[in-house]
């Protein structure tokens, strides 16, 4: 599923690899050809596995020696126990699933933490195209025409903040990117994509 924005992806891979702890267990939803999982395995000695819907990416993963399951993450993750992984990663495919709320809830059920990367729909160039030209935006992070985009849901960084607040999710780390560059001010305007590390707020008694 990791299509488009190849240059920025390498940067997001580096950031995510930096966040994942040494020897962690990691599940990636929509793991594509497994580039990120392989980095995590090699650099962080993580125990990694992936879920991917595209048959050709499955071949790629298997050729890398990765464990990957050919299935649709929209069908849920009922085969995994609660908190089975240290990290669940959803990078650049949350906007492509049919039921993002269920996918996020499942990610935070089976993972102690989740790392979520997505394109920011409120990037200024998207805003300009919509506001000034009256056209559905096509940007570096959202490179598709309306008629052939795999993206089903469009969210902004601010939308994600609001979602986390409403759903009892803590944001532990965040990085905003415009291409390869990190964005430090006005991310909802200037960032083409964002990466968050999140976890479920635990009831005080359990902490």
């Amino acid at each position, binding site marked *: 599923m990791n299509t488009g924005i190849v240059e920025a992806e390498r940067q997001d891979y580096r950031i995510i690899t930096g966040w994942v702890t040494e020897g962690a267990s990691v599940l990636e939803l929509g793991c594509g050809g497994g580039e990120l999982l392989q980095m995590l*395995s090699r650099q962080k000695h993580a125990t990694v*596995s992936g879920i991917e819907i595209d*048959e050709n990416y*499955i071949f790629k993963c298997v050729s890398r020696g990765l*464990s990957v399951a050919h299935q649709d993450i929209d069908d849920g993750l009922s085969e995994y126990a609660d908190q089975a992984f240290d990290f669940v990663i959803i990078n650049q495919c949350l906007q492509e699933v049919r039921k993002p709320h269920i996918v996020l809830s499942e990610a935070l059920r089976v993972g102690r933490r989740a790392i979520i990367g997505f394109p920011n729909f409120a990037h200024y160039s998207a805003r300009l195209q919509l506001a000034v030209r009256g056209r559905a935006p096509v940007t570096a992070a959202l490179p598709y025409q309306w008629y052939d985009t795999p993206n089903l849901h469009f969210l902004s960084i601010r939308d994600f903040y609001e979602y986390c607040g409403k759903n009892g999710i803590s944001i532990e780390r965040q990085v905003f990117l415009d291409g390869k560059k990190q964005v430090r001010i006005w991310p909802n305007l200037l960032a083409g994509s964002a990466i968050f590390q999140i976890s479920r707020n635990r009831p005080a008694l359990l902490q």
Partner: protein
Amino acid sequence: MLKTGKDIGIVETKFLTFAQPPDQLLLESGEKLGPITLAYETYGNLNADRSNAVLIFHALSGDAHAAGYHEGDDRPGWWDNMIGPGKAFDTDKYFVICSNVIGGCKGSTGPSSENERNGRPYGLDFPIITVKDMVNAQARLVDYLGIDRLLCVAGGSMGGMQALQWAVAYPSRVRSAIPIATTARHSPQQIAFNEVGRQAIMADPNWNGGDYYRGKAPTRGLSVARMVGHITYMSDESMAEKFGRRFRESEVKEKFEPDFEVEGYLQYRGDNFVKRFDANSYLYITKALDYFDLYNGKGLEHLLQGVKARFLVVAFKSDWLYPAYQSREIVRACKLSGVDATYCELNSSYGHDAFILETEEQEYLVKHFLASVSEGNGNGH
């Protein structure tokens, strides 16, 4: 995707006899069977530390001749496109063993074998056997070959059941398992199709309660059983592609003689099958399939606890006899019990037969999976 390697060349079936009375094999039914002969073939060489052995299992009507050519034959073994130098089961790297099952009629002890007690073929005196019994017999062959731990157990359909049974029954002896187009338990639909086949055989007057070895064999019944089988091995699409509604070239003289190509094909397959297969073996082996149930009234994940093998599970989208959901259940149980599993659902129009016919993608998956298992690194290192 891959270059097809060279062929293995001329191979021979070998035979091992064991379980001589009074040390017969104890079967799941509680009965004892012995002596037992297993037919098997091997390809490639066992390495010095005996760590490169791969055990291959055949499906319902298969045999030990999985690859290469028998002297004078013009057709290779049934999985020759998967086994050989440079192929998925690379005989330059791996020592590949294929064993025939007990209950069969391809050189291993089955209902058509001689019962030592009376010097006559067993017939229905042959005990009921299960997939577990088949596997326990193979374990004796693996012992005999001096192999403690198998690099991989692999097979499609009934062969996949044996692979699953091996991984569960001998967890310390299996490093990886490749169950293809298979299930952890036969569904009512699968049992039903087998029952139609069995009833066709038993309805043939020549069957004679299984005692036909001195007279005419129940060839009509067995042929009909095979025809039903062939329907279930194909898909609607592959049948339409292969036959359409075309008529045969030969002129039909009698009413209801086969005139459609598909009818002619089924008859041809049925008539051919009776030349090479024993009707009683068909009854015994299909029954073994129907009894197969790794769930055993519990969740499959409980059975997989403690299994250390890595799994590569492969299903085919058009396979309606062993539908992909059955493979997904195997994968789900692996995940729940922490067993490392890779799952791929391949696109193919061939139906259940795809595991024999549509091997290019399967070959790619198996080749890379085996490389990763044998290097012992897995996990993308």
